[in-house]
C-alpha cells in the first residue's frame, strides 16, 4: 500500500507542478480507497505552509484522507466541520503534536516554507518553536504570569539576561493585549486570571518565542462572548505578524476572523474558499448542509 501512496504522491506532485493547482485525483492512480475531490482553489500566491496528500491513521483507522491545502502567509484560515471530521487532527499535524499520540501515523508532505516538517532532519522542538499552538482549554502553567511567558524563550535560550527577558515578557503580553490588565501582578499565578485572560496569557506565551505560524484549536470554546470578542480582535491584530490557523466549532467565529475557510467532513477536505464565499455560496452540498444546519 505504501508504494502506491508514494507513486500517487509523485504523480500528484508532477501534476501540481505542471498545472499550478490541484488536478482531479481520479487521474492519479490511487486504488486503495475512494477519494473526494476538494472543491475550491487550494493554492495561494504566497504560501507559508504547503500540505499535499496528507493522510493520518489511528491504529489502522484513517482519520484524514488526502488533504492538500496551502496556508498563506499572514492569513487567518479557519477549519470548520462536524466533530470527528479531522480538522483538529490536521491542525495537530502542522506542528507534529500528533507525535505524542501512540499509534498515530502521518503520511504525506507538509512544508513550512521550504522545509518538509516530517523530514528526519527537522527536530520537533525547532518546529514547535516556529509553529506555536493555543489550545481549547486555557492551560497556563501553574506558575507566575511572568514565568508562563518567559518559559518558552528561556528553554530556547532566546535572551541574555534578566532585563532582556523582562522586555520580551512585557512585549509579548502587550501584543496579546494583556499587559494593562496584569502589569502590576506579574508574579501572581497564571491560574488566578479569568478564563479569557488565561487564554490571552496562553497566546502571549505562544508569541513569546516569536513563531511564524500560530495554531489555535477552538480557542474560545470555553469562553464567554466578551472574552471571545477580545480574542477575535486579538487574532485580527496578530494577523499582521503571524499566519494563523484556527479550528472552530462556531461558524460565526470562522466567518468573523478568517479570510479563508476550509470545510472538513469525515476526514476529507471537502471545500476550501474565501470565507464570504463559503458562508454565502458554498459549492459543495455537504458544506451547504453543514453551514445551513441541515447536517445529519
Amino acid at each position, binding site marked *: 500500500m505504501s508504494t502506491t501512496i508514494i507513486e500517487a504522491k509523485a504523480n500528484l506532485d508532477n501534476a501540481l507542478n505542471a498545472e499550478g493547482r490541484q488536478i482531479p485525483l481520479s487521474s492519479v492512480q490511487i486504488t486503495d480507497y475512494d477519494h473526494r475531490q476538494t472543491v475550491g482553489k487550494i493554492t495561494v500566491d504566497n504560501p507559508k505552509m504547503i500540505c499535499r496528500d496528507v493522510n493520518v491513521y489511528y491504529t489502522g483507522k484513517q482519520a484524514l484522507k488526502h488533504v492538500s491545502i496551502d496556508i498563506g502567509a499572514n492569513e487567518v484560515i479557519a477549519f470548520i466541520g462536524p466533530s470527528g471530521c479531522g480538522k483538529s487532527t490536521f491542525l495537530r499535524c502542522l506542528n507534529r503534536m500528533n507525535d505524542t499520540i501512540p499509534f498515530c501515523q502521518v503520511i504525506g508532505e507538509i512544508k513550512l516554507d521550504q522545509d518538509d516538517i516530517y523530514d528526519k532532519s527537522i527536530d520537533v522542538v525547532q518546529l514547535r518553536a516556529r509553529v506555536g499552538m493555543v489550545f481549547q482549554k486555557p492551560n497556563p502553567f501553574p506558575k507566575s504570569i511572568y514565568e508562563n511567558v518567559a518559559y518558552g524563550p528561556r528553554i530556547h535560550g532566546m535572551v541574555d539576561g534578566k532585563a532582556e527577558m523582562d522586555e520580551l515578557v512585557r512585549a509579548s503580553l502587550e501584543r496579546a493585549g494583556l499587559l494593562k490588565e496584569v502589569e502590576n501582578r506579574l508574579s501572581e499565578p497564571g491560574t488566578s486570571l479569568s478564563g479569557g485572560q488565561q487564554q490571552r496569557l496562553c497566546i502571549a506565551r505562544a508569541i513569546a518565542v516569536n513563531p511564524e505560524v500560530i495554531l489555535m484549536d477552538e480557542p474560545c470554546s470555553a469562553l464567554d462572548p466578551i472574552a471571545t470578542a477580545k480574542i477575535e480582535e486579538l487574532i485580527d491584530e496578530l494577523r499582521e505578524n503571524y499566519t494563523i490557523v484556527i479550528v472552530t466549532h462556531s*461558524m*460565526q467565529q470562522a*466567518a468573523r476572523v478568517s479570510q479563508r475557510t476550509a470545510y472538513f467532513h469525515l476526514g476529507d477536505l471537502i471545500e476550501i474558499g474565501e470565507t464570504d464565499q463559503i*458562508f*454565502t*455560496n*458554498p*459549492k*459543495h*452540498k455537504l*458544506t*451547504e*448542509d453543514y*453551514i*445551513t*444546519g*441541515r*447536517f*445529519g
Partner: protein
Amino acid sequence: MAISHDAHTVKQFDVLLANLRNLVLEMGGLVEDQIKNAIQALDNEDVAAAREVIARDQIINGMQVKVDEDSVSLIALRQPLGSDLRLIMSLSKIVTDLERIGDEAEKIARMTVKTYDGVSSSPSAKLLRDVHPMSKLAANMLHGCLDALARLDVEKAVEVAKGDDELDQEFQSALRRLMTYMMEDQRTIGHAINVLFIIKALERIGDHSKNIAEYIIYLVKGKDVRHVKMDVLVQDALEEE
C-alpha cells in the same frame, strides 16, 4: 450550489422559511391581481374598480412590512448562512420590487380614474392601442417570476429576464407613436400624457420583474447577475458547476 431540499435539523427553521416564502408568493399573487384589475378597469372605463385597486395597495404595503419584519427576525434569531441567507435576503429584496409593482398598478388605476372621472371626453382607442400588448407582456413577466420563485427555476427566471428587452422595445415604439399622435393633434396631449404614464408604469413592471428574476438567479446560483449584459447573465445563470 443549488438549494438543498433536505430538512434542517431544527424543524422550526424550515417552517419559518416556508412561511416567509409563501407569504412572498401570496403577495406576488395579490400584485398580479392588482395589475390585472387595473388593466381591466382601464379597459372597462370602470372608475369604481380602479378606486378599489388603489385602496387595495395598502394590503400589499402591509405584506411588504410583514415580510421584512419576518426576515429581520429570522436573521437575528437563526443566523442563516449559505442558501438560507440568500433565500432570506432575496425574498426581502423581491418584496421591495413586488411592492413597487403594486405601486405601478396603483399608478395605472390612478390614471384610469383621472382619465375617466372627468368631464372631458374619453381618449380615442388608438391612444390606448399599445397598452394591451404591453400589459400582457408585463403580466407574463411577473407571472413567470412568481413561477420561477415557487419552483426555484433558473431557466424560467432567465426567460423572464430576457423578456424585459421585448417590453422595452414595445415601450420605445409606443412612445414614438404617442409622440406622433401628440404632434398630429395637440388636443390629445392631455390624454396622451396619461397613457404615457400608464405605459411607463408597465415598462417599470417589466424592470422590477427582471430584478426579481435576477434575485432568483442569485438565490439559486449564488451569483449576482445584476447590472451585467444579458449574454453574461444567461451564461452565469445556466452554467453547470
